[in-house]
């Protein structure tokens, strides 16, 4: 399996010496609580090229969110190295380098939808007025313009998640770390936001690492789908999805799609004969 993750690397070399936007090398991480040590990441290596879209799937509790925390610089790995644009960076130097959307929407209850969407810009040093103007311009795309002045407590779960997503996209960082960004959305809104993301990525070149529980979503959106093992997580399988992006809805029912899905589910252990034990 490291072989397949090397493919991206050597391709990049051939294309002209651009280092990967994100490179994870042998990352091992554990949570320590008192005297108990919980190994979570058991040696993960992955290179994500600039502009590439990589989806991560894996059993619940396998360490997907932890992996994103490590990349974002929130958690120090026990060993291993993270490189951004080829540079090995310590945790504190990775802070502020990526646009991170965590599993919970994490809106500030005292800020309106608009001001929440503008938060990442403000943190990046954009003056408040300008940040708000830029956020306001994007609200309609998310069906939120009628709710600019609503507080999070007045919004539905799906709307809150859209505000959080907008905040992340507006951060303007080239690397997007998305932890189940569409989890709380109903099927229709989910499809609409996925399409919106696809179009955004057509216009603005960004590198995406997306954690999801939805295998269909992973195949539909990503260039590669990385399957993690149960904790401590290792890479069980990497599924390249070569159909060029952007893809369209018919792709979802194509034979290639089904073949990808079968291999991913197998790697997840869903197609085992004695199924149902997980």
């Amino acid at each position: 399996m490291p072989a397949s993750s090397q493919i991206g690397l050597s391709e990049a070399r051939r294309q002209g010496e651009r280092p990967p936007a994100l490179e994870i090398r042998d990352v091992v991480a554990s949570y320590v609580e008192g005297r108990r040590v919980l190994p979570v990441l058991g040696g993960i290596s992955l290179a994500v090229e600039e502009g590439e879209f990589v989806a991560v799937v894996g059993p619940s509790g396998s360490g997907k969110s932890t992996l994103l925390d490590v990349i974002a610089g929130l958690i120090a790995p026990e060993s291993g190295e993270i490189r951004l644009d080829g540079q090995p960076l310590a945790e504190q130097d990775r802070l502020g380098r990526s646009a991170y959307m965590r599993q919970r929407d994490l809106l500030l209850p005292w800020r309106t939808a608009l001001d929440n969407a503008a938060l990442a810009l403000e943190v990046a040093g954009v003056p408040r007025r300008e940040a708000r103007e830029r956020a306001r311009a994007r609200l309609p795309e998310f069906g939120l313009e009628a709710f600019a002045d609503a507080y999070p407590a007045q919004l539905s779960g799906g709307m809150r998640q859209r505000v959080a997503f907008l905040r992340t996209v507006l951060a303007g960082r080239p690397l997007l770390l998305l932890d189940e960004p569409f989890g709380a959305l109903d099927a229709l809104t989910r499809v609409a936001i996925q399409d919106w993301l696809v179009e955004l990525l057509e216009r603005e070149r960004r590198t995406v690492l997306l954690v999801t529980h939805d295998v269909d979503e992973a195949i539909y959106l990503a260039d590669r789908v990385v399957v993690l093992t149960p904790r401590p997580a290792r890479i069980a399988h990497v599924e390249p999805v070569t159909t060029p992006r952007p893809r369209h809805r018919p792709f979802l029912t194509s034979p290639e799609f089904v073949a990808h899905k079968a291999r991913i589910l197998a790697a997840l252990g869903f197609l085992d004969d004695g199924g149902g034990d997980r």
Partner: protein
Amino acid sequence: MTTELPPLETDQDRPLRVLPAPSRLALVRQRLAPVVLLIAVLAVWEIWVRWDNTPRWFLPPPSVIARTLVNDRALLAENAWVTLREILLGFVVALVAGVSSAIAIHASRLLERALYPILVASQAIPIVALAPLLLIWFGHGLTPKIIVTALVAFFPITVNVVDGLRSADRELLNLLRALGAGRWARFRLVTFPTALPYLFSGARIGIAVAVIGAVFGELVGAEAGLGHLLTLSAANLRTDRVFACVAILAALAVCLFSLVAVLERLVLPWRRFLVAAQPDA
């Protein structure tokens, strides 16, 4: 980079989740209920005292107290102003000192370990008992009253703000860290706003006890103020004036408390939409 993408068609016309505003009549009725009760109590009091022929020095009827309020208005106003000034000065000192100490305690592990437990424990101590000591040290002037008032208001404010600063959502702080926010930005954007409702809870308790602190400071020894006038009037068996002083103090306390509550609503408009309320006085 301009991105014009097709808008989403969801939720567009769904109305905001706003509670239905209570009708004006219902509101008036709600506000009126305690007033009606108060009037009823005063009426019973008036009738009882007149029917029983209770001596005035023992228990004057409300009508006599009302007359005293009008006749002695200059004297009462003069003394009320002294007390109000003590309350406000003491409260402001408590607010500034309380918030600063809370931030210091929050920022320093050492202070948190050493000082915070003492602060919590000291809430059980009747601070007003210090008033006689302050009289010895600072005499009859304004200073000892402000110190007592500030001391009694300081503790609830500090303890509440420390709790508030502590309750900031760790995950939210982490998200801001991941976005590149420094210590100060995280404090300004997350920690302090989280503590604001707690600050107001503390301030509501603080202003209420500040009134008690100021009056107690005056009872122990003063040359002016409602507490002083009250002691003097009681000694002269001017019970009507004692009641007048008490009435003004009560009105003062209610007004100040309401002022804090109104301020809270103005500063924290988002709180109205929360179903699960946070700490309440």
